């Protein structure tokens, strides 16, 4: 089974499970073995959920054997970022040393929805402590060690959904759930050479997920293909009485063939400024591919301090979300030295300035919607750099050390975005292309990414791990 199942897209695994060619129990055992054997190499795993996985897999096998097939995630193993609450005594550590024994007595809504879809939880995956909420500047910011990309043992996996990225890229799980406040799905997708989908804010319930910033946090899938991300999103999206921001909007994955479909793409002026040459080269090659499936036009936005708007909101909400850990000094036990004191400065952001950022957020949202109303997606490099060395500080937009207008606008306005691999640097590290769409247009950006992946093979390349 190994050759067939490892690095197989969810859709292919699902067909094998549906036709009973693949056994859910054997799949769970296969990926549990890989997580146990290979997970430590990438610091990808916090907790193997073996007992729960085998129970869920046996149930799936029974149901499918009895003709009760639930859909494409039935019997498919997955991993969850360790900020999603899980019942049954399974720790939920938020990546933070002082919380390594934290448990909850309920499942996050996303975990529950995946269970209802028949998916099999095999692991809680590593993450940057508190999802980067204390302002980390380098990869050594988790009690499980720095996340490592499977493409290079000396390079960072990205974060904060570090294990969600590396585990998918190394074939340790078919898909994973991550979260993004600003960059935490797109960054590991880019550094690990996989596909990651950040849904519209409110598309997926946040109930049971660690709060970093209530108005910026989103949960979404990381997988091998855009199609897989569409399948997973359909299972986790939707209304939830436990999260009033979870939208009651129709959720149905449009997986009709994209062959022959034409798209309208836009590129923000100056969006590659500050990007590494390898990233720019991959992006320019991608634009040539996109011109084969649509039009590409230059786009300008009004001059607003987009990054300052989103950063101000994030820092203030994080200061409040983690007030207890900051005030009682628990942050001194965190792994990254800079995470142990940087948050103290957030007390100096004045309430009036926070509200001003919220008012400017409305302006930003209107402006970008005006642009996206006549486009299918804005495209840009998902990250300005390839994976950086483990022993080096990275350039962070959240910390103000790098420009990231797409991240600031996309997250600030709550827009969906999807990152796909689009090449390699001279050093053999993946580069990534992002598609950012209008609010609630996940189907459109997934379709555009599927069209791109139908013409390229970057998503079919995998690191040598065995």
């Amino acid at each position, binding site marked *: 089974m190994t050759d067939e199942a490892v690095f197989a897209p969810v859709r292919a695994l699902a067909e094998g499970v549906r036709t009973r060619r693949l056994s859910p129990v054997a799949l769970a055992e296969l990926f549990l073995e890989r997580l146990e054997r290979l997970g430590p190499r990438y610091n990808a795993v916090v907790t193997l959920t073996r007992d729960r996985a085998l129970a869920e897999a046996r149930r799936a096998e029974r149901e499918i054997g009895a003709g009760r097939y639930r859909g494409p995630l039935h019997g498919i193993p997955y991993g969850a970022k360790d900020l999603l609450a899980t019942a049954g005594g399974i720790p939920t550590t938020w990546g933070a040393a002082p919380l390594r024994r934290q448990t909850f007595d309920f499942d996050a809504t996303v975990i529950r929805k995946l269970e209802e879809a028949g998916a099999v939880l095999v692991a809680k995956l590593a993450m940057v402590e508190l999802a980067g909420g204390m302002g980390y500047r380098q990869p050594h910011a988790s009690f499980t060690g720095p996340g490592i990309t499977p493409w290079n043992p000396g390079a960072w996996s990205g974060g904060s959904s570090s294990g969600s990225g590396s585990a998918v890229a190394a074939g340790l799980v078919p898909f994973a759930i991550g979260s993004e406040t600003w960059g935490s799905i797109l960054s590991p997708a880019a550094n690990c050479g996989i596909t990651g989908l950040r849904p519209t804010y409110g598309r997926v319930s946040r109930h049971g997920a660690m709060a970093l910033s209530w*108005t910026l946090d989103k949960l979404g899938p990381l997988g091998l293909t855009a199609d897989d991300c569409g399948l997973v999103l359909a299972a986790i999206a939707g209304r939830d009485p436990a999260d*009033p921001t979870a939208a009651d909007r129709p959720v149905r994955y449009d997986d009709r063939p994209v062959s022959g479909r034409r798209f309208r793409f836009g590129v923000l002026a100056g969006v590659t400024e500050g990007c590494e040459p390898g990233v720019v080269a991959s992006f320019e090659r991608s634009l040539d591919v996109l011109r084969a499936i649509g039009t590409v036009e230059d786009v300008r936005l009004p001059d*607003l*301090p987009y990054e*300052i*708007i989103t*950063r*101000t909101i994030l820092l203030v909400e994080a200061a409040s979300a983690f007030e207890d850990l900051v005030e009682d*000094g628990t942050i*001194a036990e965190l792994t990254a030295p800079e995470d142990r*004191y*940087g948050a*103290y*400065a*957030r*007390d*100096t*952001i*004045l309430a009036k*300035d926070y*509200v*001003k*950022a*919220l*008012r*400017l*957020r*409305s*302006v930003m*949202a209107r402006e970008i919607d005006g642009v996206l109303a006549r486009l299918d997606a804005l495209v840009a490099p998902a990250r300005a750099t390839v994976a950086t060395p483990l022993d080096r500080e990275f350039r962070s937009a959240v910390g*103000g050390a790098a420009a990231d207008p797409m991240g600031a606008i996309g997250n600030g306005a709550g827009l969906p975005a999807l990152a796909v691999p689009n090449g390699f640097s001279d050093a053999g590290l993946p580069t990534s292309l992002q598609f950012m769409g209008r609010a609630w247009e996940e189907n459109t950006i997934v379709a555009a990414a599927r069209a791109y992946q139908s013409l390229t093979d970057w998503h079919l390349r995998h690191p040598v791990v065995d």
Partner: protein
Amino acid sequence: MPERAEAEAEALFALVRARYGERLTEAQLAELRGIVASTVERARALRAIRLKNSDEPAQPFAPFRADA
């Protein structure tokens, strides 16, 4: 940074020192002084933009009823 902004940054940094100074080393305090200065710079950028009275915050408030 203009003189008034510097004064604001120093006043805000004094707040950090008063609240948390006893937990922090001089090196950490020095770094926090720089972070506070950046905070004031960001605030100045936000304050420089004029908005209309009708420009509301993006965050909605909804009255609560348990039976709604």
